């Protein structure tokens, strides 16, 4: 199925990605080609087939609820591009 540029733009926003108009054009063509290929799956009769989400279907795996040490705040923040020693810093979320 061919994709439109509008669809690809919408998916870009959902993906939190930005593209130049040129990138958008080539991406639309590439994705269209790939989606066209995976449309092959439509041929397969899957009536009554249970979806298989995992290769090895384990039962629930549980653990005792025990407290263990984890990363310190300092360690957890160490890779943050912007932080103030207490938390991650982000742009204003609410309007100005």
């Amino acid at each position, binding site marked *: 199925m061919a994709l439109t540029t509008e669809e690809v733009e919408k998916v870009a926003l*959902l993906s939190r990605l*930005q593209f130049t108009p040129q990138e958008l054009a080539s991406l639309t063509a590439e994705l269209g080609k790939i989606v066209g290929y995976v449309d092959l799956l*439509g041929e*397969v009769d899957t009536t009554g087939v249970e979806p298989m989400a*995992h290769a090895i279907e384990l039962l629930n795996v549980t653990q005792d609820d025990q407290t263990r040490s984890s*990363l310190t705040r300092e360690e957890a923040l160490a*890779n*943050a*591009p912007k932080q103030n020693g207490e938390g991650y810093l982000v742009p204003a979320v609410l309007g100005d």
Partner: protein
Amino acid sequence: MQLTSLSAARQIALLRAGEASSVELTQAYLDQIASHDGKVGAFLRIDPERAIAAARKIDERRTAGESLGCLAGVPVAVKDILAERGERTTCASRMLEEFRAPYDSTVVARLKAADAVLLGRTNMDEFAMGGATENSAFQPTRNPWDLSRSPGGSSGGAAAAVAAGMAPLSIGTDTGGSIRQPAGMCGVVGMKPTYGRVSRYGLIAFASSLDQVGPLARSVEDVALLYEAIAGPDSRDSTCLPNEVLPVGAKLHQPLEGLRVGYAKEHFAEGLDSEVASAVQQALAQYESLGAKLVEVSLPHSRYAVATYYVIAPCEASSNLARYDGIHYGYRADQTKLVAELAAKKKSLEAAGDRHAAENLDTPLVRLYCKSRSEALGPEVKRRIMLGTYALSSGYYEAYYLKALKVRRLLRQDFDQVFDQVDVLAGPVTSSPALKIGSMKDDPLAMYLVDLFTVSANLTGIPALSLPCGRTTAGLPIGLQLQAPPLEEERLLRAARMYEQATDWQTEAPPL
């Protein structure tokens, strides 16, 4: 005698006997890296001082009579996708260029516990997405057998390092063939264990229901050694299997009596390179001459495997990679610049009287996500995020993701039926030998189709191994893929060893 031409098993014996030291051995590999890696580009980073210091410490402990781990003193290269506390782990992405892992992945912890010497980090396709190691944000890796060709991918650095004698043992990861495909193209042995055999704790996620860590080396025995060092239950990964992994030991060298080797007619269809086909046919004949019974089997859904994979893997990737937001860790776009851009855009929209568009502009936070991701992720990673997001978006979920999960079960049923008739399945790893660097750059779909023979083992979760079975007239390695039922790594390794013992493809080294 050159230490680096010996197998890891032999090196371990020499170290134990006191006939070589880990410092000597580690230095020998560092020298190999110094002379070859400028051409090959297998390593992203090495830390000679640290490696030598670790080797020295192991030598000292050995001299002091301490009991040592199973890989004591042997260098291991690690794909740059597994976390090591305090060290950079980049996934070959600008996004994680400066990331330092706050904890050890289970695989790295087990290598440390086995007293292996961590030699350095190998190159890969960014976030393990690709089949040629060309999607690395930092450098391409070249095939040691022909420097104008790619080593395959995504664990191309891991395979090239072993092929070029720059590491005896190497850790890779395999989501759709990323260990087996480069192993085949570089003429080394690589195994993807059963899904869940090796803990994924601290493995940077690509597609969580498919990702599996595994070993690469020059021989089946070395692959078994490294596998046994890293595999086994781990309470930190709930998908890690509870089954203990028993060492195969001397049994490895015993041929399997009455082995039934299957070959799928679908693996020898049109599009298979004639030299690859003939090498694989000869390998089958070799098995027959060793007393194995050959059985033709059928995998009727195999023609849907790539389509199934390229729905499921991107869906999981789009979800896993949502964590790269420019906030918690990784690359962040210039905030001041983007706030100014947004303000200017708003002003121009308002001036044009388009109040609706002005009000619907991204918030600075959303724009920060978008910019950070767009500036730091490469084209293939973006393509897969887009593909996955599309397939999971409302209105398409059932037609793509759910459908693919159903076909995945049918594929597994194909394999279950095959393994009712045979013990292992043998066939090609890829339809052609190593490709010219850049030859698939503009055709992502053609690149995806290279994964034709390898993705099924990931979708079905079964163990699979690639080992050298020939050379093209141009001298490029050809790989043989063996697949076995879930948890039958021992059978897989023994079947591989049986073939290896009868041939000498693994003894040749590339002409560097």
